[in-house]
């Protein structure tokens, strides 16, 4: 953490940026932004409906091929194409019927399904797309698989093409039926990042967040530009790329920092750890900074931030901490060590601690939507809550030298994800899927795709989400 703060400081100094303007990680819990903050000059926001009719939409990605297409992920195992604000009749890909024995996707629990699709940075040339889903044949293991789009059929990967081109990148067994994580995305460095949950149950019974020998509870980073007979490579600059390398033991002539670099059994795919369920994360297209929305347990949601200069290896504290508080979170005045890097923002559930007063300004599951750099917003991570429908913004306040958590609106939407469109605006999706009254991925009420924009820029006749703005 100190290394990151120093890097940020040095970068800002070298670039001539006044230090007060450079984003910094909080160094104490009191510096972590909570509800009630204000982003200076933030506009009122509205959500304009782009398209409707999606079955349990749980992920969305804008194409990077100048086609203007938006790809909405349906939990059942399909990806729909939105083109010119219309949903194409045939799915882009369908994982429910290429296997003659039935669907390839496990959807029995609401956290299971197909979560995410990512387009290779060179998609226009190589036509590679990557998906992440819970596999039915592999008993719910999470699979990252690459498919190749036939340029002659750009809006539809046929069943035959799926089977012909499938390349399994990763198959991670899953101990329980929750906390998979889900989102996958390419970073500005061209590497594939994978949000992987702690494997489930509650309380992280496997201590997955802190263990370096498992892939659960992590943000992973891999190089998928490998020959077809090799699933992936480990980027040489991954923080634990060399931590478990075969070596001779040297007891002398090595300083303590040198010894500390040995992490026997550690997995080299790990980029960051101490995460509970990083279902969504987004890179700022302008700065390259990374935000992670780490879904909390019973009491606190947290938003983590890494500057583009990060070398990885951050420990976000789970299961020792929930946000900047303790786990278990018994009371507001409870004392415990802060493990690793603090989040930049946090918000409570209805009950912030096991004991004590209730809160009315939070939610239950933080879902990152995308980093906004348009419409009067700069480097602002938009976050929607799955339970409370609140739309938050997280941004650095250069004047006050601290992070702010700004509540833009209360909505009726159960946010599940978002992306940044080619024009820089943030798109969000909502489902009607929840733990209770779940009728299955094809029978819940349908969700929609929304464009988030300044309220005073909404085009005439647009259909708006019902909101209560502050």
């Amino acid at each position, binding site marked *: 953490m100190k290394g990151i703060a120093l890097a940020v400081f040095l970068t800002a100094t070298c670039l001539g940026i006044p230090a007060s303007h450079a984003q910094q990680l909080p160094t104490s819990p009191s510096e972590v932004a909570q509800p009630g903050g204000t982003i200076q000059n933030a506009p009122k926001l509205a959500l304009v409906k782009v398209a409707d009719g999606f079955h349990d939409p749980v992920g969305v990605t804008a194409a990077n091929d100048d086609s203007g297409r938006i790809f909405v992920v349906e939990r059942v195992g399909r990806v729909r194409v939105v083109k010119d604000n219309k949903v194409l009749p045939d799915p882009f890909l369908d994982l429910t019927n290429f296997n003659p024995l039935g669907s390839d996707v496990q959807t029995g629990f609401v956290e299971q399904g197909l979560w995410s699709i990512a387009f290779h940075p060179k998609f226009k040339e190589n036509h590679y797309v990557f998906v992440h889903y819970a596999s039915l044949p592999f008993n719910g293991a999470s699979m990252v698989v690459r498919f190749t789009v036939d340029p002659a059929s750009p809006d539809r990967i046929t069943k035959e093409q799926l089977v012909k081109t499938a390349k399994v990148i990763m198959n991670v067994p899953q101990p329980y039926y929750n906390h998979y994580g889900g989102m996958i995305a390419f970073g500005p460095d061209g590497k594939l990042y994978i949000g992987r949950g702690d494997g489930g149950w509650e309380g992280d019974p496997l201590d997955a967040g802190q263990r370096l020998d498992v892939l659960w509870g992590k943000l992973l980073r891999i190089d998928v530009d490998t020959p077809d007979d090799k699933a992936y490579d480990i980027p040489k600059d991954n923080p634990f790329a060399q931590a478990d390398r075969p070596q001779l033991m040297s007891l002398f002539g090595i300083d303590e920092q040198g010894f500390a670099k040995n992490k026997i059994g550690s997995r080299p795919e790990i980029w960051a750890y101490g995460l509970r369920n990083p279902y969504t994360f987004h890179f700022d297209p302008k700065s390259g900074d990374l935000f992670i929305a780490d879904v909390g347990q019973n009491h606190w949601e947290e938003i983590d931030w890494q500057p583009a200069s990060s070398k990885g290896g951050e420990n976000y504290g789970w299961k020792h901490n929930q946000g900047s508080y303790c786990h278990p979170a018994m009371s507001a005045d409870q004392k415990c060590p802060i493990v690793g890097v603090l989040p930049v923002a946090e918000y409570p*559930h*209805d*009950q912030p601690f096991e004991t004590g007063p*209730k809160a*009315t300004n939070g*939610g*239950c599951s933080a879902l990152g939507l995308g980093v906004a750099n348009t419409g009067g917003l700069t480097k602002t991570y938009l976050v929607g*809550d*799955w*339970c*409370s*429908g*609140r739309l938050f913004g997280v941004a650095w306040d250069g004047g006050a030298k601290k992070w702010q958590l700004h509540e833009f609106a*209360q*909505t*009726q*939407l*159960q*946010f599940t994800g978002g992306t940044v469109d080619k024009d820089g605006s943030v798109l969000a999706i909502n489902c*009607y899927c*929840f*733990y*209770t*009254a779940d*009728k299955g991925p094809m029978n819940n*009420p349908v969700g929609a795709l929304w464009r988030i924009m300044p309220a005073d820029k909404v085009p005439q006749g647009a259909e708006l989400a*019902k*909101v*209560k703005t502050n």
Partner: protein
Amino acid sequence: MRTERRHLCAAVLSSALALVVHANAGAADLSDFKNPLDDSPIEFTPQPGEVETPAVKKFKQTGENDYRNDPKAIADGKQLYEDNCVICHGADGRGKMGPTLVGKDVVYKQALTDPGMFSIIYGGARGAMQPFSKRGMKQDDMLKIIAYVRSLDK
């Protein structure tokens, strides 16, 4: 799809009449047939095959929930509550993942009246408090749930 605007009209007229005659709880209740986010009026659309029960008809006209004093309806409401509400609001109604439904410290003040709570169950509130009308719940069952929740508030 038939939208029951006539009931809304009845509610508005009834409310206006009550204001003229004398202020009473029913008048205040009827004004709570509204969306908790923007106070827009609720439109009640029956489910396919749903027939309005006498209790529902009377409720929309007067704001009075006859099931509050009906042990059988309260027992039905308990079962419905356990099937649909308990995970978020807790067995005692005092809130878990979602807010409390009992006491005065509710998130939406309109939940203190039966028309207000009915509007939230029917048309939804924020986020995961989705419209139960979209999930196929009958309006009569919503009244039973409310009757059960009120029985917890003692």
